[in-house]
């Protein structure tokens, strides 16, 4: 088997998995069977493409193989009492070439239905929409493969038994349901962007899955400002990914990053999407977060950052999305606008917030302000606290470096 074929199958896997599965589900009305047919189609592609060459339109080839397999299974199963099938909206089943995009949206909305637990939504979306294997999904969320397999099976059973419908929600529910989908995509992205544990800071597969999902949603709902806002946010943050880790593997914070390595193409695309999203009122949470990322992206250096603008955007954000983490970031922005003493004052009310009690970034932010005020002993305590609260090796080595610098400063006469 040539490498070309393997690469073509891998590419088709990334690009077309959700289309193929959604189309098969339209026939099987059962997510398990649809998954099986999709898997089979990709396996068959490996053999057939090696023998006959890669088809001109790999996605269409895979869709028709999966669909035929689904029709086959259905014919065979019709002799038996059917398993609890997936509910399908009453429109006609599409041919392999048309209506596919709607099928993908149906699949996404079903996987992100609010009647499923948050964990189940993420797991189903990664497995069924992004095509990650159960083992990959399990690794991403630090649970064992059997645990993840059980979670996915339970969720699929609930979809069938409780009759979670396989369709795009009605107009009056759409905004809320889109919001639930965007939360799933955002969580997949943030999990990949700063992997909570392990040697790698960025889990590229998760970041790519999230961006692919956001791009697909934007393609299918181009006028939805909430979708544009989220895609803008992901692109603007991902634009910096090449500069987040130094050559020797150290994590670099914004002030230290080489901004010439930021991806100008992604930034331009993100800013254009954001501008479009902000023209529609009112701004959404993700659009405001994207605006904050855009302010960073547009500053040539750390020193040029418009902290007044960023603090003002955090004021808007806390209205849309009140959360302790937003309060923390706002306090940091105030400190950078008005100086470390003002920053410490702004952080002070957060120290008693139970939601932040085990949040390492609060300790790290305090440590930074204390260090800049020359309050070495307190800074050292705060760095040690931050160290105790992170499992990411890249973050740990960053904090250890800062701690060592602070100890040096203290021992200097």
């Amino acid at each position, binding site marked *: 088997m040539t490498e070309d074929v393997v690469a073509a199958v891998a590419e088709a896997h990334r690009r077309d998995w959700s289309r193929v599965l959604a189309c098969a589900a339209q026939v099987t*009305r059962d997510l398990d069977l649809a998954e099986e047919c999709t898997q089979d189609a990709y396996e068959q592609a490996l053999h057939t493409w090696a023998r006959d060459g890669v088809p001109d339109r790999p996605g269409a080839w895979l869709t028709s193989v999966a669909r035929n397999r689904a029709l086959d299974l*259905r014919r065979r199963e019709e002799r038996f009492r*059917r398993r609890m*099938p997936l*509910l*399908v909206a*009453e429109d*006609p*089943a599409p041919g392999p070439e048309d209506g596919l995009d709607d099928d993908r949206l149906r699949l996404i909305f079903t996987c992100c*239905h609010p*009647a499923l637990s948050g964990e189940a939504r993420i797991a189903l979306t990664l497995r069924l929409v992004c095509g990650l294997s159960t083992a990959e999904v399990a690794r991403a969320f630090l649970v064992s493969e059997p645990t993840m397999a059980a979670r996915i099976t339970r969720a699929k059973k609930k979809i069938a*038994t*409780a*009759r*979670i*419908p396989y369709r795009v*929600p009605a107009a009056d*529910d759409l905004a809320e349901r889109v919001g639930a989908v965007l939360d799933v995509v955002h969580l997949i992205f943030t999990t990949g962007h700063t992997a909570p544990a392990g040697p790698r800071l960025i889990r590229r597969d998760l970041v790519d899955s999230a961006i692919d999902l956001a791009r697909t949603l934007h393609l299918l709902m181009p006028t939805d400002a909430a979708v544009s806002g989220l895609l803008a946010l992901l692109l603007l943050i991902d634009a910096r990914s090449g500069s987040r880790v130094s050559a020797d593997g150290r994590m670099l914070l914004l002030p230290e990053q080489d901004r010439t390595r930021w991806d100008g193409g992604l930034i331009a695309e993100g800013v254009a999407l954001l501008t479009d999203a902000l023209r529609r009122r009112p701004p959404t949470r993700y659009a405001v977060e994207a605006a904050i990322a855009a302010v960073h992206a547009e500053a040539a250096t750390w020193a040029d950052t418009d902290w007044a603008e960023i603090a003002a955007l955090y004021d808007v954000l806390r209205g849309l999305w009140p959360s302790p983490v937003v309060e923390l970031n706002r306090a940091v922005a105030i400190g950078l606008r008005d100086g470390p003493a003002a920053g410490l004052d702004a952080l002070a009310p957060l120290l008693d917030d139970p939601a932040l009690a085990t949040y390492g970034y609060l300790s790290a932010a305090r440590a930074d302000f204390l260090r800049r005020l020359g309050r070495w002993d307190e800074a050292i305590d705060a760095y040690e606290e931050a160290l105790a609260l992170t499992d990411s090796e890249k973050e740990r080595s960053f904090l250890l470096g800062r701690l060592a610098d602070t100890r040096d400063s203290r021992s200097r006469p």
Partner: protein
Amino acid sequence: MYLDERRDMAKYMLLIQGDPRQWDAMTPDQWTAHGAAHGAFSAEAGARILGGEQLETATTATTLRADGAGGVVTTDGPFLETKEVLGGFYLLEAADLDEAIKLASLLPEVRAGHSGVEIRPVVEHG
């Protein structure tokens, strides 16, 4: 189309759970508003409601269990001693979960704070 076999409706049990002390503390005016909201739910759901009742307080419940010696033991009180108890139910017919959620959202217990409505699909036989 081959979708016909699922055109039939599914049944859902709406289990109304809440804090009985809060229900006991309601004023006559609050009960009137509460009843009106149930009326609005009934009007909207119409023939989809297959049945439904308000239950007497859980302190009037009697529970039967095996006594471990082949017999049955009768005890005073509900099956589970919890702060929130089952206060009533509807048996509802709906095309899918979204429709059941939409209708159940009209029930006043969904918004009261101390109470809520659990939606359980009913097992389909045959």
